[in-house]
């Protein structure tokens, strides 16, 4: 299936900056449309005796919401990002050490988990840790008319406000939400997160659409490598 030039299937504009934090070993900020996330990577560092692993690095992921205390949702996202980091970093090269990853939400206009994963990937890239491949995450929403929307922007109805009551309803204008993560070498699926109601067919179709769209993110990563390599 090919991507039509329909608005629904276009990715939002991506912008990013690397190495913006002087104290972190690697850092990146990324905006995808209105969503924005910042990530930092430190490592390999000294590991606490409780977490020591003789065979590979211990990866710690901290995910912080924009406001309020981190809850179950954030813990869940930490878990997702952690398993993805363990896949893409060659942790076996850094035994008895710790790699700390922190992601911080900055602006939420939908697809924030995908945005955070992409930010973490860019931060790892900047930190100089050895990787197996890049990872690209794409969000896809299933609206009430059963249309699939690639990387949809949450459009606020009026002037924006920020109360915690409204916060939880941000991605709720879709009946189903998918976040697919692909690797850069074989473009195979390395992570998926879904919520809502959808059929298997819709899931497969969404995966196909996202796989095609992931090319744009990988191209963007390559541009970033090129841009920052020439600066040096």
């Amino acid at each position, binding site marked *: 299936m090919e991507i039509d030039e329909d608005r629904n299937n276009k990715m939002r504009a991506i912008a990013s900056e690397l190495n913006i934090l002087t104290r972190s070993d690697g850092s990146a900020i990324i905006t995808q449309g209105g969503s924005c996330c910042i990530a930092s990577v430190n490592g390999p560092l000294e590991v606490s005796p409780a977490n020591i692993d003789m065979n590979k690095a211990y990866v710690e992921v901290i995910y912080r919401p924009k406001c309020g205390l981190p809850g179950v949702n954030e813990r869940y996202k930490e878990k997702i990002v952690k398993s993805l980091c363990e896949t893409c970093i060659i942790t076996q090269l850094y035994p008895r050490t710790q790699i700390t990853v922190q992601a911080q939400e900055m602006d939420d206009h939908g697809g924030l988990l995908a945005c955070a994963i992409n930010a973490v990937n860019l931060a790892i890239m900047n930190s*100089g840790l*050895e990787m197996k491949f890049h990872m690209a995450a794409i969000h896809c929403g299933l609206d009430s008319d059963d249309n699939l929307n690639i990387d949809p922007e949450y459009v606020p109805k009026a002037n924006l406000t920020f109360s915690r009551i409204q916060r939880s309803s941000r991605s709720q204008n879709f009946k189903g939400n998918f976040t697919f993560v692909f690797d850069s070498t074989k473009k195979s699926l390395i992570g998926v997160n879904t919520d809502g109601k959808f059929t298997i067919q819709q899931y497969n179709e969404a995966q196909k659409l996202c796989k095609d769209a992931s090319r744009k993110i990988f191209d963007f990563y390559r541009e970033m*490598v090129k841009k920052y390599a020439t600066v040096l």
Partner: protein
Amino acid sequence: MAACVGNSCIPGETLQEERQESSDIRKVVLGDGLRCNIVASSEEHSLPVITKNGILRRRKPNIYYVDSYQKRYIPSKNDSVIGIVTTKTLDFFWVDINASEPAALSYLAFEGATKKNRPEINVGDLVFCKVVLAHPDLEPELVCVDSTGKKGNLGQLNDGIMFSCSINLVRKVLNEKCRLLHLLSKETPFELVAGINGRIWVNSNSLRKTILLRDTILKAEHTPYEEMSNIVNDFATELTGIP
């Protein structure tokens, strides 16, 4: 996907093309950012795979490496590093070298040191030393003498200021193409020690001059090689009036 020398490369790409080009050479040396057998796969298992982001480079005749950005130091043998003594134990100084764990520096690894005649170094002092043992499973080990037992340039660093920077800046400063230090030394005499672990130490006869030197070196990070004379000129103008 295959990466080409001189171009940007990303993890997962293979070194295919280059291998063919240099097929007459029997051995290929893989440097930083290239590894073999990282991804288990049937058809490509023999090809080296890129593991870092940056520019693929080749040094004649057959050394390949990736020029990438890094701030955290990963110990490697024969590197010259600047460390801070953090603790003293019975036989060793434990030295922070900006790596994942402190490195061991034996009391005997100094020129003329014996069991009774120990070097006078305190916690918090800076030492310039060489890495003699670097393995991911072991603590790194340092020495302050060369193989003949002479200290050479190694040893304790007194006065001056040490500052942290990216490892790339240290490489840049030490690069033969970079004329920064050469140009600076024409302006004023100073002492400089560059540790490949992302630490640079400078000293001169006045505090203000040392501060200016530090500032100029940090500026060099984002200055191309050709424009080094500009920042040195700026340095020279600011230097006027300082004895």
